[in-house]
């Protein structure tokens, strides 16, 4: 994206807000966790005491430690349990997880409680001593699931993730929307400025050209009359040359008329036009020129397509494009395709020339821009004017050294 810096500028407040929320939430969770751990520790020490009393009782009745031990390993929250003798050697143990009994000397030096982290969540551990009536000394090691704490942390984490995700989502949508509006506004402003300048230039040229045309047409009319007079008065052998001269003058007049009409606003006379018939007519008009250049013209019609349009203007636009395509190169072929896609009517004109040079691509629709030696540069300008008057779009794509495809899209129901 070109405006990446600009985009990030909008995101900075969002990221800052997310970071602050994240930090505050983490601190809050840590505080709750610590407080609950303290409460749970007290509760579980009480549970351990009860277990010790019960096991001591069974041991006093001469039930073996293994048996005594396993009786109480029913509680789901107990992950593991171990019974140690007075030398702190393990007599019996059980675990819900294969071979998992995280007991080490550093923990068994003194009695106490601690929490260890594990993939199943934090586990509360308690190592404490008890004695039986027979003066037997034992140690009980217990690993207990901190389910309540887990639940609380789980809900806290879930809420955090959901709220965080929501903030990010809303922030992204909001700031992205803001950025798009800003971008859209900037683009519109630039376009409006460009259009305004174009219009002013157009008005200037239009006024100037109308004036010039008017000034030139007067003497041209006089010249035409003069030639007609000369036709009548001169001998036969000169009539051919005089006629040639008259034709040239009339040509100049036509050129001036063409210029004038190019700058006038278009008035559309819309009728139901068949695309298929239209491109057949276009082909007929350009056939001679195409044959002389050895270029084939191929038509591809995807069904019966009709559109409301000014037939003459549209034909003129297409003829301009095809003649442009013929100028692009000799030989090869020109393919004219008509199609419909969703609610749009599409015409494509593709040539097999060398493609439009990169430096010209921005200007080809400009009036009086031409790459041809004898071109006036209003053909494509007129074509785009006609298409825009029909509320359509014209675009082109240059295929790598293989020619150009012009695409016209017209709205259609």
């Amino acid at each position, binding site marked *: 994206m070109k405006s990446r810096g600009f985009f990030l500028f909008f995101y900075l407040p969002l990221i800052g807000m997310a970071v602050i929320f994240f930090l505050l939430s983490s601190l809050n969770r840590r505080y709750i966790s610590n407080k609950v751990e303290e409460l749970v520790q007290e509760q579980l020490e009480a549970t351990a005491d009860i277990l010790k009393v019960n096991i001591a009782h069974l041991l006093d009745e001469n039930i073996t430690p293994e048996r005594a031990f396993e009786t109480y390993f029913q509680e*789901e929250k107990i992950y593991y349990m171990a019974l140690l003798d007075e030398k702190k050697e393990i007599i019996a143990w059980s675990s819900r997880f294969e071979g998992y009994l995280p007991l080490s000397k550093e923990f068994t030096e003194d009695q106490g409680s601690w929490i260890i982290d594990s993939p*199943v969540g934090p586990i509360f551990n308690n190592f404490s001593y008890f004695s039986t009536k027979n003066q037997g000394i034992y140690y009980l090691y217990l690993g207990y699931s901190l389910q309540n704490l887990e639940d609380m942390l789980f809900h806290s984490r879930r809420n955090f993730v959901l709220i965080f995700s929501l903030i990010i989502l809303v922030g992204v949508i909001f700031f992205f929307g803001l950025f798009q509006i800003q971008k859209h506004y900037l683009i519109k402003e630039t376009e409006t400025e460009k259009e305004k300048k174009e219009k002013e230039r157009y008005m200037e040229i239009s006024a100037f050209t109308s004036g010039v045309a008017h000034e030139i047409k007067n003497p041209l009319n006089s010249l035409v009359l003069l030639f007609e007079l000369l036709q009548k008065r001169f001998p036969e052998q000169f009539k051919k040359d005089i006629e040639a001269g008259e034709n040239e003058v009339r040509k100049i007049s036509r050129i001036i008329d063409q210029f004038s009409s190019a700058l006038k606003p278009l008035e559309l006379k819309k009728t139901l036009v068949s695309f298929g018939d239209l491109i057949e007519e276009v082909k007929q008009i350009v056939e001679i020129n195409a044959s002389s250049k050895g270029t084939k013209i191929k038509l591809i019609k995807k069904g019966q397509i009709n559109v409301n349009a000014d037939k003459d203007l549209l034909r003129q636009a297409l003829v301009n494009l095809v003649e442009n395509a013929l100028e692009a190169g000799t030989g090869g072929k020109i393919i004219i395709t008509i199609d419909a*896609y969703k609610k749009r009517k599409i015409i494509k004109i593709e040539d097999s020339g060398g493609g439009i040079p990169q430096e010209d691509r921005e200007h080809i629709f400009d009036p009086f821009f031409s790459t041809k030696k004898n071109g006036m540069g209003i053909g494509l300008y007129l074509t785009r004017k006609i298409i825009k008057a029909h509320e359509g*779009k014209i*675009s082109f*794509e240059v295929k790598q050294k*293989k020619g150009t495809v012009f695409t016209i899209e017209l709205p259609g129901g």
Partner: protein
Amino acid sequence: MKKATIFIFVFTIMMTVNYADILTFSLIQNVTDNLFQNKDAQEDKVSFFGLYIDKDFDRTSLFAQGGYNSLWENPDAAHMSLEAGIDHFFALNNQTALYLLLDGGGTFYRKEFNDFNHLSLDFYTALKSYLTQTSILKIDSSSTYKNYNLPIFDSLSQSIHLSLDKYFQTRTTFQVDIEWGYKHFFHPNLLNSISVSSEYSAGSMGKGKGYSKGKMFYQEDYSSDKKGQGIQVFSFGGTAAQGLGSRLGLRFSGAKKFMVSGENPFTYIEDYYMIENPSYDSYSWEGIQWEAVMTAVLSWNMELKIGYNYFDRSFPGIDVLNDEGDTTGEMREDIRKQISLLLQKDFKHFSIFLSYTGIANSSNDLFFDWEGQFFSAGIEWNIFYGARK
């Protein structure tokens, strides 16, 4: 289709996030000097953001994941992928284990590339068995159904891979691999709509006829041909792996692949970086490939992998096209040399990696005569999220 899939996926995520065990975030940054992997090298950066959750029940796991690839210079090719599935491990007997995976998902591109949008369904099985103490048999099977926006790419593929290895006293493991695959395109010639480009005047990025980067599909004639077409491939190969102590391993492998029947149904195919092009995959070529890989465990338990690959491939059904887009009658053949490096370190809750790949691809179709370099760096952060019972 796209909106319904996204809605179902997001809804499922939100419901299951309550019960998930693991939540993983991934961030990967990729940089390349040749995104579309052709002669007209285009630089780009691809940023990937991924989210993954799963819920485990002993040997069964439910999972879902979503990812977004954002391309800096070619934003039209940005895409989102979503996937969800279930897998399970079985112990068939003392020597044999079986793994099953079923998943479905979709990948969605922006407008200019949305012909590549697709939904897919995969079923995968893997069996591993100790035949003797020095010999392991593995049989993998994979079935994939894909449904694309542009129906010419709709396909169903099935492959079976068998490998048998044997360890020798010289600390060498030899492995023999056999693979058979069949890919059926349901209607590769059916074309009744076109991708229309919007108003722009950028240069061409494709080569004439055939499918070109999801943009203007350029084909002379439309077709309503619904006939299917299949490609059958068969390959065999071998691997020799040598352990040099416990910290160092070397592996050499080679394989030969044949396109037993059928050929590529498209006019030409392209292979992009980080963008899955449905016409280019393991069914589109035949030939030979060699690989040499060294893996090492460095200090702090970092893993290093250095690899060299050589491919000599031809593409039946794909002709070399000239500058005018016309066929020259010659089948496209590529020779590719590739070097790759990967450095990875796993921590308790996250892992990071750095990788580099350098590729030199020479082809008799000059458009696919190219060189490229690809860098990636990524981090994956695991949150043990769920409440456990």
